[in-house]
């Protein structure tokens, strides 16, 4: 009960934040900034407490709230923590104060509105993760459009209006079909059982024909795949990232893109298991194409932000690959990879923002040899680069390794059974690691080494605020890299649940074997 109240406090603190900063008199921009930071920090502290109290051995929801909302239609205000969302909620709450602190000096126009919108999107993102009712999920999911539309459109770069309208029109199209699909799903479940309910727990296992499942999955998947984004639905992302202010990019890469993969793991696949199983080869193919194609596109960019934007496509391809493997390690790896990418991409976008604030250009050709003039900046940049590549001891390694391991574990028996296609995809996916190392190291080389070129120089190195932000960001990067058992354990029940729902009886063959190993490691680290 106490946990449930704390969880609601976490969810509604951002709204309180909006009320507080709107109530402040005009012209006190600094107080607005500090107040926002304080509220976000409080939110993170409570979330961390909830995370520590989260019991990884319980299957089901924890800290659950369940109140009638539109009771006549079976829509309930139902939120709670489970293995699917606990790490992502922690990530969102963790990035909150860093995002706010990162915007202290960059945002000088309409400060109140800006921080209100940051709070608003924080609220919507947390709500999306926490919602355990399909309509509630949809409402939070769509709500994210409004603040992001304004953040990119008001504080963005030169082509911001084009980028933000493109972002909204792209993502809204997917959601429109998802709305029709979810109504159809609930209605089918209602005619089948006579129990009108939007609760996710009631909707799993709805009896649908294969054809219905196919259409519904397509509608859900379109919406999620746009958000991920998976090739070929990715074209909104570079525009949105490049034109968004730093804060917008950080939120987008840090949390918002995870909505797509979270949608797949939480709803898309488990709701329509047979169709999902049939579609897995396609998902796997698209995931691997996203990994390689995203990496190749990142390789040829000259805009620093674009490189990182395209690398997001590649990194989220791993998440999809892990889910498509249906192997326990692969699924857990997918969740870890979501968190890891959230941390590293957020860090890299923050760092791009820091250099942009100083030099007013993102053109890679204008830079060179920053290691000599900005040593602290260069150290942080290098660490984040290595984390993004997936160097062991960083979170990137844990995520990618588990995903690839899962992909191979799943593909090998199929190869022995005569179907080598998954194995081929897994092998191609490994090349993404090499490509990742290429574009990131090449970026670091061109930016940090060589002849010294600093536009609008001389510039100062990172100040204390910026150092603290980046140092804080590195803590979880190394935590997940060095002691992955603890966070992995929190996701285990969810991974098992996902596997049971989607793969059904097939799961027992390869998947469940590594589970005790993880359990043991976790116990050992405790």
């Amino acid at each position, binding site marked *: 009960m106490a946990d449930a109240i704390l969880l609601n406090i976490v969810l509604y603190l951002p709204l309180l934040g909006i009320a507080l900063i709107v109530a402040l008199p005009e012209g006190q921009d600094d107080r607005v900034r500090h107040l926002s930071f304080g509220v976000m920090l409080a939110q993170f502290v409570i979330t961390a407490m909830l995370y520590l109290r989260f019991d990884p051995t319980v299957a089901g929801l924890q800290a659950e709230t369940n109140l009638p909302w539109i009771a006549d239609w079976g829509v309930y205000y139902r939120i709670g923590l489970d293995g699917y969302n606990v790490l992502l909620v922690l990530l969102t709450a963790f990035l909150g104060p860093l995002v706010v602190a990162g915007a202290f000096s960059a945002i000088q126009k309409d400060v109140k509105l800006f921080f209100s919108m940051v709070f608003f999107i924080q609220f919507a993102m947390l709500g999306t993760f926490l919602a355990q009712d399909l309509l509630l999920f949809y409402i939070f999911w769509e*709500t994210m459009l409004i603040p992001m539309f304004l953040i990119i459109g008001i504080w963005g770069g030169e082509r911001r209006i084009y980028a933000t309208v493109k972002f909204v029109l792209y993502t809204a199209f997917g959601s429109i079909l998802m709305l029709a699909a979810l109504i159809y799903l609930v209605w089918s479940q209602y005619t089948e059982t006579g129990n009108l309910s939007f609760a996710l727990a009631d909707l799993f296992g709805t009896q649908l024909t294969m054809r219905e499942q196919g259409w519904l999955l397509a509608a859900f998947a379109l919406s999620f795949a746009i958000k991920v984004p998976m090739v070929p639905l990715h074209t909104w992302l570079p525009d949105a990232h490049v034109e968004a202010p730093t804060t917008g990019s950080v939120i987008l890469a840090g949390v918002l893109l995870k909505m797509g993969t979270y949608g797949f793991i939480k709803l898309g696949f488990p709701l329509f298991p047979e169709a999902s199983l049939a579609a897995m080869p396609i998902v796997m193919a698209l995931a691997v194409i996203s990994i390689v194609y995203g990496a190749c596109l990142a390789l040829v960019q000259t805009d620093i932000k674009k490189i990182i934007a395209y690398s997001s496509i590649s990194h989220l391809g791993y998440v999809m690959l892990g889910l498509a493997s249906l192997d326990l390690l692969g699924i857990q790896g997918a969740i870890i990879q979501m968190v890891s990418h959230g941390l590293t991409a957020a860090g890299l976008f923050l760092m791009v923002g820091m250099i942009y604030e100083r030099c007013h250009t993102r053109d890679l050709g204008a830079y060179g040899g920053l290691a000599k003039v900005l040593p602290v900046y260069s150290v942080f940049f290098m660490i984040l680069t290595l984390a993004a590549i997936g160097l062991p001891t960083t979170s990137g390694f844990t995520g990618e390794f588990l995903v690839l391991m899962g992909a191979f574990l799943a593909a090998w028996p199929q190869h022995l059974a005569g179907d080598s296609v998954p194995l081929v995809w897994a092998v191609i996916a490994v090349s993404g690691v090499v490509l990742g190392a290429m574009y990131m190291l090449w970026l670091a080389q061109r930016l940090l080494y060589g002849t010294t070129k600093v536009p609008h120089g001389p510039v100062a190195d990172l100040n204390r605020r910026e150092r603290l932000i980046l140092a804080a960001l590195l803590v979880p990067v190394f935590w997940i890299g060095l002691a992955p058992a603890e966070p992995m354990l929190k996701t285990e029940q969810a991974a098992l649940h996902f596997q049971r729902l989607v793969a059904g009886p097939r799961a027992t063959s390869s998947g469940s074997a590594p589970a005790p190993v993880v359990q043991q490691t976790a116990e050992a680290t405790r």
Partner: protein
Amino acid sequence: MNWTQVLVAMLPEHLLLAGIVMLLLLDIASDRPRGQLAVALAAVIAATLAASVLAIAGYTAEPFAGQLSVDSSAFAAKAIVLVLAIPVLLLARDEFPDGPFYLLLLSSLYGASLILSADSFLTLFLGLELMSIPVYTMVLLAMRRPDCTEAALKYLILGGTATAMLLMGVSLQFGYTGSLQLADFGLLLDTGSPMAQSAVVLVLLAFFLKAAIVPFHTWAPDAYEAATVPVTGFMATVVKAGVLLAAVRLFGYESLSGHLVELLAVLALASIVWGNLAAIRQTSFRRMIAYSSIAHAGYLFYAFLGDGEGRFQAVAFYSLVYGLMNLLAFASLPAAGDDAERDRLENLKGYYQRAPFAAVMIAMAMFSLAGIPPLPGFVAKFLIFRNVIEAGYTLYAVLGLVGSYLGIYFYLRLVVYMFMSPAPAGLQPQPTARLALGATLICLVPTIVLMVYPGGLLRGL
């Protein structure tokens, strides 16, 4: 005839009538213009309260057997139509400091209220005409531009055509069934006789014309643009809600089938698509709202595809939310200076810098009209499409939703203008009138309530 029943069942109408009489007396007795707004406002508020209380109490009566009956849903519908008139009145002061505007508005409201308890085509016809005729005059009242006459004439002629078609349809029904009861209209739906079908189609066309459904919509953009803000607000909200709720009363709980479904779905879909597309290229705010209202009439008629049970709930909730959103936007427009200037979309550029609160209100209204959650427009739209899917018309629902997607762009464009574009030179920030602020708040409070807890109202409907 039971006089108590006549008194209680028609209490909202009586209160409006009392207001009308008071206004007439005031006109004779005094030349102080300010009292008129107060009298009209008092009458409308009293009527709204009466309708709400009777709806909650669940009062049921049939004071004029076969002509007029009331139950809690009739009172709920009346309350929705009446409450939307309150912000309209508050907006009207600047445009109409005195004169016959308030009298016309109350008469029109009386008509709108009457049709919502009609049981026979006689009462329906009486109410529909009483609602429409004052509006033709209201469009002309503040004649500032030569094209006002053209617009009002267009509106009058097409309105007259609608009346003629309605009468033709009704006489066909009378010929076929020998009765003018609305309840017998439902019987016509199931028969295959050409006479009965012609009757149904003619009556439907009359409603399409009044609600501005494509291809009977051409009067709406002209009339909306030519009229002033309060009159446009009245037409877009009160009149539209009245027509649609009357259509619900007409069809009752009958489920539609066969060609009628196709006719309704195709025309409604055409309205959604065309309304949303045509709105994209408008440069006048009120013309844009006109096309938006054409699209929204399409959504509202979509609700008729669903089963009878959910139909009233969907249309009532949607009309209320849609009306509140439109009035919220109208109330937050720049204060009245030069009307033609006020109407230009370009002038809303940089509006957030000049009037942050008003700009946020318009943005809320636009997001809500676009159906983006968490704003109540989403729940309203969800309600309609849920009914359509539950009735088994999945394909129509998907097409309608895709049509509604087309509408997102022009609502967003207005937000882009207000928040993301620099203000045009030479615009002075003007203080918002107090009464307009009051109208904003009257729309805002229910909007927030419906956003946080839509379940409350839905249980009541």
